[in-house]
Protein backbone atom coordinates (compact mmCIF):
# COMPACT_ATOMS: atom_id res chain seq x y z
CA UNK A 1 0.00 0.00 0.00
CA UNK A 2 1.47 3.41 -0.94
CA UNK A 3 2.15 5.80 1.94
CA UNK A 4 0.27 9.03 2.44
CA UNK A 5 2.02 11.72 0.34
CA UNK A 6 3.05 13.68 3.50
CA UNK A 7 4.61 10.59 5.09
CA UNK A 8 6.22 9.79 1.74
CA UNK A 9 7.79 13.28 1.67
CA UNK A 10 9.04 12.80 5.25
CA UNK A 11 10.69 9.50 4.38
CA UNK A 12 12.27 11.08 1.32
CA UNK A 13 13.77 13.93 3.34
CA UNK A 14 15.11 11.55 5.99
CA UNK A 15 16.57 9.28 3.31
CA UNK A 16 18.14 12.25 1.53
CA UNK A 17 19.86 13.39 4.74
CA UNK A 18 20.86 9.88 5.76
CA UNK A 19 22.37 9.17 2.34
CA UNK A 20 24.72 12.11 2.91
CA UNK A 21 25.42 11.79 6.67
CA UNK A 22 24.76 8.15 7.64
CA UNK A 23 23.33 9.52 10.87
CA UNK A 24 20.61 6.87 11.19
CA UNK A 25 23.19 4.30 12.25
CA UNK A 26 24.40 6.57 15.06
CA UNK A 27 20.79 7.22 16.08
CA UNK A 28 20.01 3.50 16.21
CA UNK A 29 23.25 2.89 18.14
CA UNK A 30 22.25 5.55 20.68
CA UNK A 31 18.55 4.72 21.05
CA UNK A 32 18.40 0.94 20.71
CA UNK A 33 21.41 0.02 22.85
CA UNK A 34 20.46 -2.21 25.71
CA UNK A 35 20.24 -1.04 29.30
CA UNK A 36 21.02 -3.71 31.93
CA UNK A 37 18.28 -5.31 33.95
CA UNK A 38 17.56 -3.68 37.30
CA UNK A 39 18.20 -0.07 36.29
CA UNK A 40 15.79 2.05 38.31
CA UNK A 41 14.72 5.62 38.98
CA UNK A 42 18.13 6.58 40.36
CA UNK A 43 19.40 6.23 36.79
CA UNK A 44 17.27 9.15 35.65
CA UNK A 45 19.23 11.71 37.73
CA UNK A 46 21.79 12.29 34.96
CA UNK A 47 19.23 12.97 32.24
CA UNK A 48 17.25 15.09 34.73
CA UNK A 49 20.37 17.24 35.24
CA UNK A 50 20.71 17.61 31.49
CA UNK A 51 17.06 18.58 31.25
CA UNK A 52 17.53 21.23 33.96
CA UNK A 53 20.47 22.57 31.92
CA UNK A 54 18.27 22.75 28.80
CA UNK A 55 15.63 24.63 30.80
CA UNK A 56 18.34 27.05 31.98
CA UNK A 57 19.50 27.52 28.39
CA UNK A 58 16.01 28.30 27.09
CA UNK A 59 15.01 30.65 29.95
CA UNK A 60 18.50 32.21 29.74
CA UNK A 61 17.99 33.08 26.08
CA UNK A 62 14.77 34.92 26.95
CA UNK A 63 16.46 36.78 29.82
CA UNK A 64 19.34 37.77 27.50
CA UNK A 65 16.81 39.44 25.17
CA UNK A 66 16.14 42.04 27.87
CA UNK A 67 19.33 42.17 29.92
CA UNK A 68 21.98 44.88 29.48
CA UNK A 69 25.37 44.25 31.14
CA UNK A 70 25.85 47.90 32.00
CA UNK A 71 27.43 48.47 35.40
CA UNK A 72 26.52 52.17 35.52
CA UNK A 73 22.84 51.47 36.17
CA UNK A 74 21.60 49.85 32.96
CA UNK A 75 21.89 46.31 34.31
CA UNK A 76 19.84 47.02 37.42
CA UNK A 77 17.28 48.97 35.40
CA UNK A 78 16.96 46.22 32.75
CA UNK A 79 16.36 43.61 35.47
CA UNK A 80 13.78 45.87 37.10
CA UNK A 81 12.05 46.39 33.75
CA UNK A 82 12.12 42.65 33.02
CA UNK A 83 10.79 41.72 36.44
CA UNK A 84 8.08 44.35 36.77
CA UNK A 85 6.93 45.24 33.28
CA UNK A 86 7.71 42.51 30.74
CA UNK A 87 4.93 39.94 30.16
CA UNK A 88 5.83 36.82 32.21
CA UNK A 89 9.23 38.41 32.92
CA UNK A 90 9.19 37.64 36.64
CA UNK A 91 8.05 34.07 35.94
CA UNK A 92 10.85 33.34 33.46
CA UNK A 93 13.42 34.98 35.73
CA UNK A 94 12.07 32.87 38.60
CA UNK A 95 12.42 29.72 36.51
CA UNK A 96 16.03 30.61 35.72
CA UNK A 97 16.81 31.47 39.36
CA UNK A 98 15.22 28.35 40.86
CA UNK A 99 16.29 26.18 37.93
CA UNK A 100 19.86 26.89 39.04
CA UNK A 101 19.09 25.47 42.50
CA UNK A 102 17.38 22.44 40.97
CA UNK A 103 20.33 21.80 38.68
CA UNK A 104 22.85 22.05 41.54
CA UNK A 105 20.79 19.61 43.64
CA UNK A 106 20.45 17.16 40.73
CA UNK A 107 24.13 17.29 39.86
CA UNK A 108 25.04 16.42 43.47
CA UNK A 109 22.45 13.62 43.64
CA UNK A 110 23.71 12.18 40.36
CA UNK A 111 27.29 12.28 41.65
CA UNK A 112 26.22 10.72 44.96
CA UNK A 113 24.56 7.81 43.15
CA UNK A 114 27.61 7.30 40.94
CA UNK A 115 29.95 7.37 43.94
CA UNK A 116 27.89 5.14 46.20
CA UNK A 117 27.41 2.46 43.55
CA UNK A 118 31.03 2.45 42.46
CA UNK A 119 30.04 3.43 38.92
CA UNK A 120 33.25 5.48 38.52
CA UNK A 121 35.34 2.29 38.42
CA UNK A 122 36.82 0.56 35.37
CA UNK A 123 36.05 1.20 32.53
CA UNK A 124 34.23 4.47 33.34
CA UNK A 125 37.04 6.47 35.04
CA UNK A 126 37.25 9.06 32.28
CA UNK A 127 33.52 9.67 32.42
CA UNK A 128 33.77 10.34 36.17
CA UNK A 129 36.48 12.96 35.49
CA UNK A 130 34.32 14.64 32.84
CA UNK A 131 31.51 14.59 35.40
CA UNK A 132 33.68 16.36 38.00
CA UNK A 133 34.50 19.06 35.44
CA UNK A 134 30.76 19.43 34.76
CA UNK A 135 30.09 19.77 38.50
CA UNK A 136 32.69 22.55 38.79
CA UNK A 137 31.34 24.30 35.67
CA UNK A 138 27.83 24.15 37.14
CA UNK A 139 29.10 25.87 40.28
CA UNK A 140 30.89 28.48 38.11
CA UNK A 141 27.55 29.13 36.37
CA UNK A 142 25.87 29.60 39.74
CA UNK A 143 28.60 31.98 40.91
CA UNK A 144 28.80 34.13 37.77
CA UNK A 145 25.01 34.29 37.43
CA UNK A 146 24.66 35.59 40.97
CA UNK A 147 26.26 38.93 40.00
CA UNK A 148 24.08 39.71 36.98
CA UNK A 149 20.97 41.19 38.72
CA UNK A 150 23.51 43.75 40.01
CA UNK A 151 21.79 44.59 43.29
CA UNK A 152 23.60 44.99 46.61
CA UNK A 153 23.39 41.28 47.38
CA UNK A 154 24.83 40.30 44.01
CA UNK A 155 27.58 42.92 44.09
CA UNK A 156 28.94 42.25 47.56
CA UNK A 157 28.80 38.45 47.32
CA UNK A 158 30.81 38.67 44.11
CA UNK A 159 33.33 41.09 45.62
CA UNK A 160 33.92 38.54 48.38
CA UNK A 161 34.08 35.62 45.93
CA UNK A 162 36.63 37.34 43.69
CA UNK A 163 38.69 38.36 46.72
CA UNK A 164 38.70 34.74 47.91
CA UNK A 165 39.79 33.66 44.41
CA UNK A 166 42.66 36.11 44.76
CA UNK A 167 44.00 34.29 47.84
CA UNK A 168 44.39 31.02 45.90
CA UNK A 169 47.85 29.52 45.40
CA UNK A 170 49.95 30.48 42.34
CA UNK A 171 47.17 31.25 39.80
CA UNK A 172 44.77 32.80 42.36
CA UNK A 173 45.78 36.48 41.99
CA UNK A 174 45.93 36.25 38.16
CA UNK A 175 42.55 34.51 37.99
CA UNK A 176 41.00 37.15 40.24
CA UNK A 177 42.47 39.97 38.12
CA UNK A 178 41.18 38.27 34.97
CA UNK A 179 37.67 37.88 36.42
CA UNK A 180 37.51 41.48 37.66
CA UNK A 181 39.17 42.91 34.56
CA UNK A 182 41.78 44.60 36.74
CA UNK A 183 42.87 44.72 40.34
CA UNK A 184 39.64 46.41 41.43
CA UNK A 185 36.01 45.50 40.92
CA UNK A 186 34.97 47.85 38.10
CA UNK A 187 32.74 48.51 35.12
CA UNK A 188 34.33 45.74 33.01
CA UNK A 189 33.75 43.11 35.70
CA UNK A 190 30.03 42.82 34.97
CA UNK A 191 30.48 42.32 31.21
CA UNK A 192 33.18 39.71 31.88
CA UNK A 193 30.93 37.77 34.19
CA UNK A 194 28.13 38.09 31.63
CA UNK A 195 30.30 36.74 28.80
CA UNK A 196 31.56 33.88 30.98
CA UNK A 197 28.05 33.10 32.20
CA UNK A 198 26.29 33.03 28.84
CA UNK A 199 28.97 32.13 26.30
CA UNK A 200 32.06 30.44 27.70
CA UNK A 201 30.74 28.10 30.38
CA UNK A 202 27.47 27.02 28.68
CA UNK A 203 29.48 26.13 25.57
CA UNK A 204 31.88 24.06 27.64
CA UNK A 205 29.01 22.40 29.51
CA UNK A 206 27.19 21.50 26.29
CA UNK A 207 30.35 20.05 24.73
CA UNK A 208 31.28 18.06 27.83
CA UNK A 209 27.72 16.80 28.26
CA UNK A 210 27.98 15.48 24.70
CA UNK A 211 31.24 13.69 25.56
CA UNK A 212 29.70 12.41 28.82
CA UNK A 213 26.68 11.01 26.95
CA UNK A 214 28.83 9.49 24.22
CA UNK A 215 30.83 7.58 26.81
CA UNK A 216 27.65 6.46 28.59
CA UNK A 217 26.34 5.05 25.31
CA UNK A 218 29.69 3.53 24.37
CA UNK A 219 30.48 1.90 27.70
CA UNK A 220 26.86 1.17 28.63
CA UNK A 221 24.81 2.17 31.63
CA UNK A 222 26.11 0.43 34.77
CA UNK A 223 24.10 -2.37 36.28
CA UNK A 224 23.19 -1.90 39.96
CA UNK A 225 26.12 -3.30 41.97
CA UNK A 226 23.99 -6.04 43.52
CA UNK A 227 23.05 -7.59 40.17
CA UNK A 228 24.90 -10.85 39.61
CA UNK A 229 25.07 -13.10 36.59
CA UNK A 230 23.55 -16.55 36.85
CA UNK A 231 26.47 -18.92 36.61
CA UNK A 232 24.94 -21.09 33.90
CA UNK A 233 24.89 -18.35 31.27
CA UNK A 234 27.49 -18.87 28.60
CA UNK A 235 29.00 -15.81 27.00
CA UNK A 236 29.03 -17.29 23.50
CA UNK A 237 25.26 -17.85 23.56
CA UNK A 238 24.70 -14.12 23.80
CA UNK A 239 24.10 -11.83 20.89
CA UNK A 240 26.52 -8.95 20.83
Amino acid at each position, binding site marked *: MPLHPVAEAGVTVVDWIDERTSLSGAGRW*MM*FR*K*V*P*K*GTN*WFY*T*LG*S*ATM*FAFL*SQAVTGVFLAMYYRPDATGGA*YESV*RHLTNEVFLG*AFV*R*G*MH*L*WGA*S*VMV*VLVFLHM*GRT*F*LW*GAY*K*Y*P*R*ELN*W*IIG*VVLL*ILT*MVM*ALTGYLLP*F*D*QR*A*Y*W*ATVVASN*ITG*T*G*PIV*GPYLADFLRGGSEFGATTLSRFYAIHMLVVPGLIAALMGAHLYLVAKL*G*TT*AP*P*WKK*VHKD*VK*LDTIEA
Partner: protein
Amino acid sequence: MNQRQKEEYLREYSILKSEGKPFFPYAVAKDAAMACVVMICIITLSLVLGVEQGSKVNPTTTTYVPRPDWYFFFLFELLRVIKPPSLVGLATVGIPTLGMILLFTLPFFDRGPERRPERRPIATATFVFVAIAMALLTYDGATVGTPTALNINLPTSVAQQGTAAVAKFELGREAVAQNGCEDCHDIAGNGNSGPGPELTYIGSRLPANAIGRTLANPTAPMPSFKNLPANKFDAIEYFLSQLK
Protein backbone atom coordinates in the same frame (compact mmCIF):
# COMPACT_ATOMS: atom_id res chain seq x y z
CA MET B 1 41.69 -4.06 39.32
CA ASN B 2 44.09 -6.37 37.56
CA GLN B 3 43.67 -7.64 34.01
CA ARG B 4 41.75 -10.75 35.07
CA GLN B 5 39.31 -8.71 37.17
CA LYS B 6 38.82 -6.24 34.33
CA GLU B 7 37.98 -9.00 31.87
CA GLU B 8 35.69 -10.67 34.39
CA TYR B 9 33.85 -7.38 34.91
CA LEU B 10 33.44 -6.78 31.18
CA ARG B 11 32.18 -10.35 30.70
CA GLU B 12 29.63 -10.11 33.51
CA TYR B 13 28.55 -6.70 32.34
CA SER B 14 28.00 -7.82 28.77
CA ILE B 15 25.75 -10.63 30.05
CA LEU B 16 23.74 -8.26 32.28
CA LYS B 17 23.46 -5.80 29.40
CA SER B 18 22.25 -8.44 26.96
CA GLU B 19 19.54 -9.46 29.44
CA GLY B 20 18.33 -5.87 29.66
CA LYS B 21 15.83 -3.87 27.68
CA PRO B 22 16.46 -1.37 24.87
CA PHE B 23 17.12 2.23 25.90
CA PHE B 24 14.24 3.34 23.68
CA PRO B 25 11.46 3.27 24.79
CA TYR B 26 12.01 1.83 28.30
CA ALA B 27 14.72 4.09 29.78
CA VAL B 28 13.56 7.03 27.65
CA ALA B 29 10.07 6.79 29.18
CA LYS B 30 11.50 6.99 32.71
CA ASP B 31 13.79 9.87 31.74
CA ALA B 32 10.85 11.72 30.20
CA ALA B 33 8.73 11.22 33.33
CA MET B 34 11.62 12.52 35.45
CA ALA B 35 12.02 15.53 33.10
CA CYS B 36 8.35 16.36 33.72
CA VAL B 37 8.94 16.19 37.49
CA VAL B 38 11.93 18.55 37.13
CA MET B 39 9.88 20.98 35.02
CA ILE B 40 7.02 20.93 37.55
CA CYS B 41 9.48 21.58 40.40
CA ILE B 42 11.06 24.55 38.60
CA ILE B 43 7.70 26.08 37.65
CA THR B 44 6.30 25.59 41.17
CA LEU B 45 9.38 27.16 42.77
CA SER B 46 9.15 30.11 40.39
CA LEU B 47 5.43 30.63 41.07
CA VAL B 48 5.59 30.12 44.85
CA LEU B 49 8.91 31.71 45.80
CA GLY B 50 9.28 34.10 42.89
CA VAL B 51 12.12 36.58 42.46
CA GLU B 52 13.07 39.69 44.29
CA GLN B 53 15.29 42.59 43.44
CA GLY B 54 17.40 44.13 46.19
CA SER B 55 18.49 47.72 46.40
CA LYS B 56 20.80 49.21 43.81
CA VAL B 57 24.55 48.62 44.06
CA ASN B 58 26.33 51.04 46.34
CA PRO B 59 30.09 50.33 46.33
CA THR B 60 30.74 52.89 49.05
CA THR B 61 28.62 51.26 51.73
CA THR B 62 30.53 49.64 54.56
CA THR B 63 27.64 48.06 56.40
CA TYR B 64 26.33 45.56 53.84
CA VAL B 65 26.91 41.97 54.91
CA PRO B 66 27.31 39.75 51.85
CA ARG B 67 25.70 36.35 51.61
CA PRO B 68 26.09 33.80 48.82
CA ASP B 69 23.27 31.74 47.35
CA TRP B 70 22.25 28.75 49.48
CA TYR B 71 24.27 26.14 47.59
CA PHE B 72 27.48 27.91 48.60
CA PHE B 73 26.50 28.02 52.28
CA PHE B 74 28.60 24.95 53.07
CA LEU B 75 31.74 26.73 51.84
CA PHE B 76 30.70 29.99 53.46
CA GLU B 77 30.09 28.26 56.80
CA LEU B 78 33.59 26.76 56.75
CA LEU B 79 34.78 30.35 57.10
CA ARG B 80 32.75 30.78 60.28
CA VAL B 81 33.62 27.38 61.73
CA ILE B 82 37.35 27.88 61.14
CA LYS B 83 38.10 31.01 63.15
CA PRO B 84 41.86 31.50 63.66
CA PRO B 85 43.11 33.98 61.04
CA SER B 86 46.08 31.75 60.24
CA LEU B 87 43.68 29.02 59.07
CA VAL B 88 41.34 31.19 56.98
CA GLY B 89 43.27 30.29 53.81
CA LEU B 90 42.53 26.66 54.59
CA ALA B 91 38.80 27.32 54.66
CA THR B 92 38.59 29.58 51.60
CA VAL B 93 40.96 27.80 49.25
CA GLY B 94 42.59 24.80 50.92
CA ILE B 95 39.60 22.58 51.64
CA PRO B 96 37.74 23.24 48.35
CA THR B 97 40.95 22.66 46.35
CA LEU B 98 41.69 19.47 48.23
CA GLY B 99 38.11 18.31 47.68
CA MET B 100 38.39 18.91 43.94
CA ILE B 101 41.73 17.08 43.73
CA LEU B 102 40.27 14.11 45.62
CA LEU B 103 37.25 14.02 43.29
CA PHE B 104 39.41 14.13 40.17
CA THR B 105 41.79 11.43 41.34
CA LEU B 106 39.15 9.16 42.92
CA PRO B 107 39.15 6.54 40.12
CA PHE B 108 42.96 6.33 40.36
CA PHE B 109 43.28 5.63 44.08
CA ASP B 110 40.09 3.60 44.49
CA ARG B 111 40.73 0.80 42.01
CA GLY B 112 39.29 -2.21 43.80
CA PRO B 113 36.85 -4.42 41.88
CA GLU B 114 34.11 -4.24 44.55
CA ARG B 115 31.13 -2.02 43.72
CA ARG B 116 28.57 -2.81 46.40
CA PRO B 117 28.43 0.06 48.94
CA GLU B 118 28.09 -2.29 51.94
CA ARG B 119 31.38 -3.95 50.99
CA ARG B 120 33.24 -0.64 50.53
CA PRO B 121 33.13 0.61 54.13
CA ILE B 122 35.66 3.42 53.72
CA ALA B 123 33.98 4.84 50.61
CA THR B 124 30.49 4.54 52.09
CA ALA B 125 31.55 6.04 55.44
CA THR B 126 33.20 8.94 53.57
CA PHE B 127 30.01 9.47 51.59
CA VAL B 128 27.85 9.53 54.73
CA PHE B 129 30.29 11.85 56.54
CA VAL B 130 30.54 14.32 53.63
CA ALA B 131 26.77 14.29 53.05
CA ILE B 132 26.02 14.96 56.73
CA ALA B 133 28.74 17.62 57.00
CA MET B 134 27.47 19.44 53.92
CA ALA B 135 23.87 19.22 55.12
CA LEU B 136 24.76 20.56 58.59
CA LEU B 137 26.92 23.36 57.20
CA THR B 138 24.18 24.34 54.74
CA TYR B 139 21.59 24.30 57.54
CA ASP B 140 23.88 26.39 59.78
CA GLY B 141 24.52 28.83 56.96
CA ALA B 142 20.80 29.20 56.39
CA THR B 143 19.89 29.77 60.04
CA VAL B 144 22.65 32.09 61.26
CA GLY B 145 22.07 35.81 61.10
CA THR B 146 24.63 37.99 59.44
CA PRO B 147 28.10 36.46 59.70
CA THR B 148 29.30 39.29 61.91
CA ALA B 149 26.26 39.22 64.22
CA LEU B 150 27.09 39.26 67.91
CA ASN B 151 26.27 36.06 69.67
CA ILE B 152 25.45 37.37 73.16
CA ASN B 153 22.55 36.50 75.44
CA LEU B 154 20.21 39.33 76.32
CA PRO B 155 21.25 40.47 79.85
CA THR B 156 18.41 39.92 82.35
CA SER B 157 18.82 43.52 83.59
CA VAL B 158 17.90 44.75 80.09
CA ALA B 159 15.01 42.31 79.79
CA GLN B 160 13.57 43.61 83.06
CA GLN B 161 13.59 47.21 81.81
CA GLY B 162 10.89 46.42 79.25
CA THR B 163 10.51 46.14 75.49
CA ALA B 164 11.90 49.61 74.65
CA ALA B 165 15.20 48.75 76.35
CA VAL B 166 15.34 45.37 74.61
CA ALA B 167 14.73 47.03 71.23
CA LYS B 168 17.51 49.54 71.91
CA PHE B 169 19.86 46.75 72.98
CA GLU B 170 19.10 44.80 69.79
CA LEU B 171 19.60 47.89 67.63
CA GLY B 172 22.94 48.40 69.38
CA ARG B 173 23.90 44.77 68.79
CA GLU B 174 23.21 45.19 65.07
CA ALA B 175 25.00 48.54 64.84
CA VAL B 176 28.08 47.20 66.64
CA ALA B 177 28.24 44.30 64.17
CA GLN B 178 27.69 46.57 61.17
CA ASN B 179 30.36 49.02 62.21
CA GLY B 180 33.06 46.41 62.47
CA CYS B 181 33.81 46.77 66.21
CA GLU B 182 34.66 43.07 66.26
CA ASP B 183 37.51 43.62 63.81
CA CYS B 184 39.59 44.91 66.73
CA HIS B 185 37.66 44.01 69.91
CA ASP B 186 36.72 40.73 71.52
CA ILE B 187 33.09 40.86 72.68
CA ALA B 188 32.21 37.72 74.64
CA GLY B 189 34.12 35.47 72.25
CA ASN B 190 32.94 37.26 69.10
CA GLY B 191 35.57 38.99 67.00
CA ASN B 192 39.34 39.40 67.26
CA SER B 193 41.22 39.81 70.54
CA GLY B 194 43.11 42.95 69.62
CA PRO B 195 44.46 45.43 68.87
CA GLY B 196 41.63 47.00 70.90
CA PRO B 197 40.80 46.00 74.50
CA GLU B 198 38.22 43.33 75.29
CA LEU B 199 34.69 44.74 75.61
CA THR B 200 32.93 41.76 77.23
CA TYR B 201 32.60 43.57 80.61
CA ILE B 202 33.10 47.16 79.45
CA GLY B 203 29.85 48.25 81.16
CA SER B 204 31.25 47.45 84.59
CA ARG B 205 34.42 49.45 83.97
CA LEU B 206 33.05 52.55 82.26
CA PRO B 207 29.76 54.43 82.68
CA ALA B 208 27.64 55.02 79.57
CA ASN B 209 28.70 58.63 79.05
CA ALA B 210 32.40 57.65 79.19
CA ILE B 211 31.78 55.00 76.56
CA GLY B 212 30.06 57.66 74.44
CA ARG B 213 33.06 60.00 74.80
CA THR B 214 35.42 57.24 73.67
CA LEU B 215 33.23 56.44 70.65
CA ALA B 216 33.23 60.10 69.62
CA ASN B 217 36.87 60.92 70.41
CA PRO B 218 38.83 57.66 70.43
CA THR B 219 42.54 57.09 70.65
CA ALA B 220 44.08 56.19 67.27
CA PRO B 221 43.92 53.80 65.47
CA MET B 222 40.25 53.48 66.47
CA PRO B 223 38.03 55.53 64.12
CA SER B 224 35.52 58.05 65.49
CA PHE B 225 31.83 57.15 65.33
CA LYS B 226 30.49 60.64 66.01
CA ASN B 227 29.08 60.90 62.46
CA LEU B 228 26.73 57.94 62.93
CA PRO B 229 22.99 58.70 63.06
CA ALA B 230 22.15 59.70 66.64
CA ASN B 231 19.86 56.72 67.30
CA LYS B 232 22.55 54.23 66.24
CA PHE B 233 25.22 56.03 68.26
CA ASP B 234 23.00 56.00 71.35
CA ALA B 235 22.15 52.34 70.77
CA ILE B 236 25.83 51.37 70.56
CA GLU B 237 26.57 53.36 73.73
CA TYR B 238 23.64 51.71 75.52
CA PHE B 239 24.51 48.22 74.25
CA LEU B 240 28.13 48.47 75.42
CA SER B 241 27.15 49.96 78.80
CA GLN B 242 24.98 46.90 79.47
CA LEU B 243 27.86 44.43 78.97
CA LYS B 244 28.71 43.67 82.60
